[in-house]
């Protein structure tokens, strides 16, 4: 079982890019500035990425925040597998890494980072997981793409790109660290799946 194989549908062959490498870099720079602005300097910000690609996005945001503020921003990862509400509908997944920065999250502003915001169930699970780890001052959410179709009352604080999709479409984020290149692909779901 390879934990890096995404259970999501593979992009169809006719998938078209909606964000390319330079767009992704620009979008992350904007989000970093928004975080500094809203958090009034980002003094107590902790970035937690949701594996796999959320972690890489969180690391990239941390670099940008450091460039803006001149301070090191703690960054970690939060695996939500054990908190999923659909665990009993699939075979158990291999667990990814949860790494909370040394000073913890108590009293801090936690910014959760993920690649795609869809049903909102992943974020609900992440909020449950945070609850077991500590008590942040506040929790915010940053995503690269918001594709809509929420099933829970959850919204993102920082959105790279709003991408209205139909449920027949797939959104696939590829990042250099994992996939060799930066791109967001919009495809059509294969019907034989």
């Amino acid at each position, binding site marked *: 079982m390879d934990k890096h194989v995404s259970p999501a549908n593979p992009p169809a062959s006719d998938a078209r890019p909606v964000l390319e490498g330079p767009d992704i870099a620009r979008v992350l720079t904007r989000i970093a500035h928004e975080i500094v602005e809203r958090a009034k300097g980002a003094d107590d910000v902790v970035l937690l990425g949701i594996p796999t690609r959320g972690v890489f996005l969180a690391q990239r945001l941390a670099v940008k925040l450091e460039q803006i503020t001149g301070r090191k921003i703690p960054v970690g990862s939060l695996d939500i597998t054990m908190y999923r509400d659909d665990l009993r509908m699939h075979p158990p*997944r291999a667990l990814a890494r949860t790494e909370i920065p040394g000073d913890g999250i108590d009293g801090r502003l936690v910014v959760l980072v993920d690649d795609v915001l869809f049903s909102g169930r992943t974020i609900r699970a992440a909020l449950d997981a945070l609850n*077991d*780890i500590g008590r942040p001052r506040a929790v915010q959410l940053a995503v690269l793409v918001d594709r809509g179709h929420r099933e829970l009352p959850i919204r993102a604080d920082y959105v790279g790109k709003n991408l209205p999709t139909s449920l027949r479409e797939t959104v696939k984020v590829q990042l250099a660290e994992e996939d060799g290149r930066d791109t967001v692909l919009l495809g059509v779901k294969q019907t034989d799946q």
Partner: protein
Amino acid sequence: MQRHLISAADLTRDDAVLILDTAEEMARVADRPIKKLPTLRGRTIVNLFFEDSTRTRISFEAAEKRLSADVINFTAKGSSVSKGESLKDTAQTLEAMGVDAVVIRHGASGAPYRLANSGWIDAAVINAGDGTHQHPTQALLDAFTMRRRLIGRDAGLGKDLSGRRITIVGDVLHSRVARSNVDLLHTLGAEVTLVAPPTLVPVGVETWPCEVSYDLDSVLPKSDAVMMLRVQRERMNAAFFPTEREYSRRYGLDGERMAKMPEHAIVMHPGPMVRGMEITAEVADSERCTVVEQVANGVSIRMAVLYLLLGGNEPAVTHARTNEEK
């Protein structure tokens, strides 16, 4: 589809590594202020112990509770079993109560296999030690301890124990721990040497995937880990060695012998230790002895096994072969 853990021999290399990697993540939960995950909420697990075992039972219970399962402890003493109830009737009672998994410890080799394959019960069966046969979660926690100490906590992820040399010393004849370890360590690529008095070597050992030696001193310098076994006097109905003193002199581990081991080598013991007999206090209390770590690792391993067998709609662990094929 197999959904039980009866024998360490049933695990493939990939399954075993998946369990070890999962346990590494589970171990991180133990470092948190709230040592609990909601993963098995609403599932009922029965710890069915026909034989006394404090260590294994608490370890399973801690693992089950950390995963939020509902736990029922059943000990044979004072139960209907002492009134003559059979394993079948006990199983059917548990089935009627809607139990999702049974962790069974039994004095008779094969009891967990019978429970899993008889059709009496639909629950997943996890062997927590049966007679002199198997104790798979013990072997897994031992392998986990070795991988952590010999390769490293994070460096070991995804890796097996290829090329490591493990020596298992003592009462192999009565030891399910030795049997399970030989099976699992072989699957994980390690070279195993058993060292025991000839009277405590089981018949048919030549078919096991390991070497056998009667001389501890010659094996020690080339061992990465030395596992001392407890001399199980309660299972000995005859004299297997002349005196305790002689056993200690030839097969006990003291400071002088430990010094013959390579610098990085560790000393393991499944517990409970009989100090002075198979291991001296000096060795038991040394930095190289992993007994206390093994106990902590046991909880992580059992959490991983429970998660992989019960966490989804079907288990993640496939089995190398069914027991019928053996």
